[in-house]
């Protein structure tokens, strides 16, 4: 994080997001604190999608007419800009429908490796092999690995959490062993915002020759990320959490690995040669993009990356850090509020989960909603994490570049309001 960059001009930024000026629930000013679930899109992204559809729309990678050419250029141009944004090469990014599909792509392709050629041998998992995850994972980076273990007879192991919700890395070598074939873990928790030490886990995995799969859904939108520098083998993130459209995710795969990885979804566009007896497959990334792909979504995500680049990821990270510090302090000062996870903002992104004594998270969310404040309530697709933190569910506020300190204050006031309404103040 830099301290030299000028702070964000949030007032000017907010003008780019038309939805932020609407009101909700009988004229309340919208306070949107749910960007961890989905972010809002600036006019620049919406305009890029519209301009593509109005001037260049066609199916990509098929057809030789001018529109097909322009559409393909727009689609592949977006891939290049997104690759530059995350420190990857052009051919190392695969477009998926969402981040969840990216994790499934790797897990299913590994499952297919046993019946593929010798080049896929390093992806084969079976009885005696171990798949390592963490208790912190979003279900998207947990359930596909449980399923891969169930299908192949491999054993699922996991890193536990410390009482304040960080990864317990006190005995890495007992979890990542020579039997480990893959280590899947999140860069930044979608619940607590905890940022994990990727270097420690990558080093341990590399020592035993295991693959690493990074959930980058909450890191790529909120700070500078360079996959080559991190040294991970695969990473997946989604468009809609980084000012881009829904319906598009991105899977990063180290080039040499993508070249050897068997396909997951098969069909048109991903083939090299098709005969009735069988088929051969295109090189990556096309091998992993079967069927007609999304187009305006890719263009929109390219525009989102341009927007984020202009604003500056360091500045965004610093801004969110300031909001997180304020939220921890504000909520922490309310009697009856229990902050879940780390109590400080060290190595942490802009997510603050909490419970209010005597007010169920669903009910707290309802009171906040009546005040115009949008937060997430529930387990946020991280049920095991909540069990670790002794919480059935939680209220979660998440921040992005367009949020303000005033909105943090509104949240804290809203929590007091909820306590008053349910008579626990």
């Amino acid at each position: 994080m830099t301290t030299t960059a000028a702070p964000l001009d949030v007032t000017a930024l907010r003008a780019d997001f038309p939805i932020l000026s609407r009101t909700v629930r009988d004229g309340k000013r919208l306070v949107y604190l749910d960007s961890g679930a989905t972010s809002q899109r600036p006019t620049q992204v919406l305009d890029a999608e519209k301009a593509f559809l109005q001037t260049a729309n066609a199916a990509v990678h098929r057809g030789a007419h001018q529109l097909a050419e322009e559409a393909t250029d727009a689609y592949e141009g977006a891939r290049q800009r997104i690759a530059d944004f995350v420190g990857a090469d052009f051919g190392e990014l695969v477009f998926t429908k969402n981040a969840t599909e990216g994790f499934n792509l790797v897990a299913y392709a590994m499952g297919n490796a046993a019946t593929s050629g010798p080049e896929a041998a390093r992806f084969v998992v079976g009885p005696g092999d171990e798949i390592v995850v963490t208790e912190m994972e979003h279900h998207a980076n947990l359930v596909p690995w449980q399923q891969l273990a169930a299908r192949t007879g491999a054993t699922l192991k996991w890193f536990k959490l410390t009482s304040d919700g960080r990864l317990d890395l006190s005995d890495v070598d007992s979890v990542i062993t020579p039997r480990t074939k893959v280590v899947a873990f999140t860069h930044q928790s979608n619940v607590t915002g905890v940022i994990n030490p990727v270097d420690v886990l990558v080093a341990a995995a590399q020592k035993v020759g295991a693959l690493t799969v990074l959930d980058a859904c909450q890191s790529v939108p909120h700070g500078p990320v360079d996959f080559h520098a991190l040294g991970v083998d695969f990473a997946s993130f989604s468009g809609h959490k980084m000012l881009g459209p829904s319906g598009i995710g991105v899977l990063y795969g180290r080039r040499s690995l993508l070249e050897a990885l068997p396909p997951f979804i098969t069909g048109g566009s991903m083939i090299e040669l098709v005969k009735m007896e069988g088929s051969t497959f295109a090189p990556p990334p096309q091998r992993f993009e079967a069927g007609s792909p999304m187009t305006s979504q890719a263009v929109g995500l390219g525009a989102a990356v341009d927007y984020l680049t202009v604003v500056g990821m360091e500045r965004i990270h610093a801004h969110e850090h300031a909001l997180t510090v304020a939220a921890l302090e504000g909520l922490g000062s309310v009697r009856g509020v229990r902050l879940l996870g780390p109590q400080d903002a060290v190595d942490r992104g802009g997510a603050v989960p909490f419970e209010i004594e005597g007010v169920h998270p669903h009910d707290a969310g309802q009171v906040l909603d009546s005040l115009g404040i949008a937060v997430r309530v529930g387990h946020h697709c991280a049920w095991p994490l909540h069990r670790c933190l002794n919480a059935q569910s939680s209220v979660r506020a998440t921040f992005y570049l367009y949020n303000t300190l005033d909105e943090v204050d509104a949240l804290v006031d809203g929590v007091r309001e909820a306590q008053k309404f349910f008579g626990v103040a």
Partner: protein
Amino acid sequence: MQLQQMYQEIILDHYKNPHGRGLRDPFDAESFQVNPTCGDEVTLRVHVVDDVVRDVSYDGQGCSISQASTSVLTDLVVGKPVGEAFKKMDAFVELMQGRGKVEPDEDVLEDGIAFAGVAKYPARVKCALLGWMAFKDAVARSQGAA
């Protein structure tokens, strides 16, 4: 204010002082239901004798809406023939799925009419129905076992 429309006093009373709460014997069947979006859960037992609901007992973790509606459920169905209990359930489900446009019949639903405001919030309808889905499932199990 909309909030008061949703959280009627009756609902808050049932939430703070739930009726029939706690798991009891004897029982013929038990059902565990969970709302996968929020993790709210209820375990509910039914005791049915000669086609009459003799007891409903339950335990669970959940929001005020799910807990209060299960409390109201016990008031409505205990002592009633299964057929009548199911009619009340159907009326409650219809009310909850009516997006606030169904006029509830107090003779049938008694305290249950307080949930009319909840029906305007689609995200909370599942909360209100959690205990009822457990009741339906438990009765079906008790009949299957008979």
